[in-house]
């Protein structure tokens, strides 16, 4: 008789780990090139990647299809400006604090939107995001419809600000991927994946569905708010229409759906594809959004697990093994 073993690492995860180390080395090297444009692009790419990971956690794992995550992008951005400009907090420190502000507001928000089931949750979250936008647009202290400019960074040299923003973005990106990975591998993550597969079955086995979903909603709000602050630390200028734009959710949704819903690798692949699409079609106006929309619709019809799902099914590659696989020796 031989004992069964539980295997968690895969050969791809070992190669993936090596690739991740190489990518990290490359990211550390970028500032030494002094290419500010490249650094700004990596900040933007990281921001979208984190937004995508957070939305994936919500929709792909917890089954909470929110169309209102732009609420937390906006809250994070405005929290950064209020904390740094009005309360004198260091702007770089204000970024994680802005995430906390978003998570704090997410708790009462959850009590409202969790009343919606299924498809109506999507529209309900969208309506609540509009409430946030209109409240901000009607508040004098937040600059009403015109918005505000982040002034706290003006005393800093441009190079210092750019390097600080870049370093913060890279740290946030790595931390987000790491956090999602370890969360999914944890006991709570196992419960979450059980909920994704079958809500009644997981509940009958003792998973607290409501608390797990609420936890995921708050985590996603924190990550999204943090990213919103990062985005506006990079852009410096904020307005309610841009910060609370549905486009934030549209971009992340397309990234996740095309890349692969409910996988950690999908949003990574999707973010790279999104950027490639946008750069290639930069001269054709809104066509990249139309094409991404079509691609997302086709993905849902033909390959609902996304492009990464196709790769994983074809070659059995899992760079981030969050599943447990039972093996018999030999």
């Amino acid at each position, binding site marked *: 008789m031989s004992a069964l073993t539980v295997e968690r690492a895969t050969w791809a995860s070992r190669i993936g780990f090596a690739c991740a180390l190489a990518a990290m080395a490359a990211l550390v090297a970028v500032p030494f090139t002094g290419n500010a444009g490249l650094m700004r692009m990596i900040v933007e790419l990281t921001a979208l990647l984190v937004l995508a990971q957070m939305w994936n956690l919500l*929709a792909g794992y917890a*089954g909470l*299809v929110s*169309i209102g995550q732009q609420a937390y992008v906006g809250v994070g951005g405005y929290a950064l400006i209020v904390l740094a400009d009005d309360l004198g907090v260091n702007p770089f420190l204000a970024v994680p604090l802005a995430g906390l502000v978003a998570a704090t507001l997410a708790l009462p928000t959850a009590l*409202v939107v969790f*009343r919606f089931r*299924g*498809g*109506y949750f*999507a*529209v*309900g979250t*969208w*309506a*609540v995001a*509009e*409430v946030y936008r*209109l*409240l901000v*647009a*009607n508040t004098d202290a937040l600059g*009403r419809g015109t918005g505000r400019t982040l002034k706290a960074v003006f005393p800093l040299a441009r190079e210092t600000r750019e390097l600080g923003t870049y370093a913060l973005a890279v740290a946030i990106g790595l931390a987000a991927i790491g956090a999602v990975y370890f969360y999914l591998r944890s006991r709570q993550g196992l419960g979450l994946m059980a909920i994704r597969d079958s809500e009644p079955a997981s509940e009958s086995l003792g998973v607290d569905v409501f608390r797990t979903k609420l936890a995921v909603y708050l985590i996603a709000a924190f990550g999204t708010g943090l990213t919103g602050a990062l985005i506006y630390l990079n852009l410096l200028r904020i307005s309610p229409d841009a910060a609370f734009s*549905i486009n934030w959710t*549209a971009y992340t*949704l*397309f990234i996740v*759906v095309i890349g692969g819903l409910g996988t950690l690798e999908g949003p990574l692949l999707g973010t790279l594809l999104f950027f490639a699409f946008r750069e290639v079609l930069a001269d054709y*106006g*809104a*066509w990249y*959004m*139309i094409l*991404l*929309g*079509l691609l*997302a*619709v086709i993905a*849902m*019809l033909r390959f*609902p697990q996304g492009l990464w799902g196709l790769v994983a099914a074809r070659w059995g590659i899992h760079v981030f093994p969050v599943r447990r696989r039972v093996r018999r020796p030999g």
Partner: protein
Amino acid sequence: MAWLDTVLQGVLLGGLYALFATGLSLIFGVMRLVNLAHGDFSILAAFLAVVAVGTWSINPLLALVVVAPLMAALGYALQWLVLDRLLGRGMLPAVLVTFGFSVIIQNGLLELFSADSRRLNPGGIETASLALGGGLAVGWFSLLTFAVAVLLLAALHLLIGRSAIGRAFRATSDDDATAALMGIDTRRLHGLAMALSLAIVAVAGVFLGIRTTFTFSSGPDRLLFAFEAVIIGGLGSLWGTLVGGVILGVAQTVGAKLSPGWGVLTGHLVFLAVLLLRPSGLFAPSRRVDS
């Protein structure tokens, strides 16, 4: 008197919102589908009316004779080719795909018609008003909109409650699989429900386009107002939807009168208040499509 006038305008505006809400509520009732592109379809219809008016120099209301069947055909085709394949896989794929439609329609309209705002001109009726005495007056067009909304709701009520196809709608709503066993072609029925939904929203879109200016991105707000009217009124109640639309309309006009920036926001806040106080809406649901 000024306040009475504001409330009256809100009530009439509510008729338009009920028109938007009916189509949304219908397809949710029949196949549990939430169409996130609902508002964008109405704006698409308004732009089609712009084209029809430009091509044949006709009244935009007459353009509906072409636009509504065209939207119905589009609805049937999309349901048949895309959405029906997603039902039965949970709500997630359908929500994501209709959101994809929303983005495709908006950006498509942006590419074809630019970001300029448009308006449909019905030749005078939109500015004519009826004096009610005591300084009160209502626009003929607002009255017409409200009357059309009530008539359409009544017709839909009869269709669902009294006709064979209405019975099939209700049966499919209650239990899709059993309805199919009893010989109902549910796929065709889903197509018809979506066709009906988009034909109604085409009417709503053209009336909206006569009432106010619109752009390629006017859709999402229409979806939200429609959704709020449905939730305030209570899911599954057609007349509740009308009352829901009226409450939302009044909240918006009263809010806008208090402070210009607060119209839409007040509507949203009233919706949230109803949701928190009466989660199932003001008109308690019976689990059927009709009231």
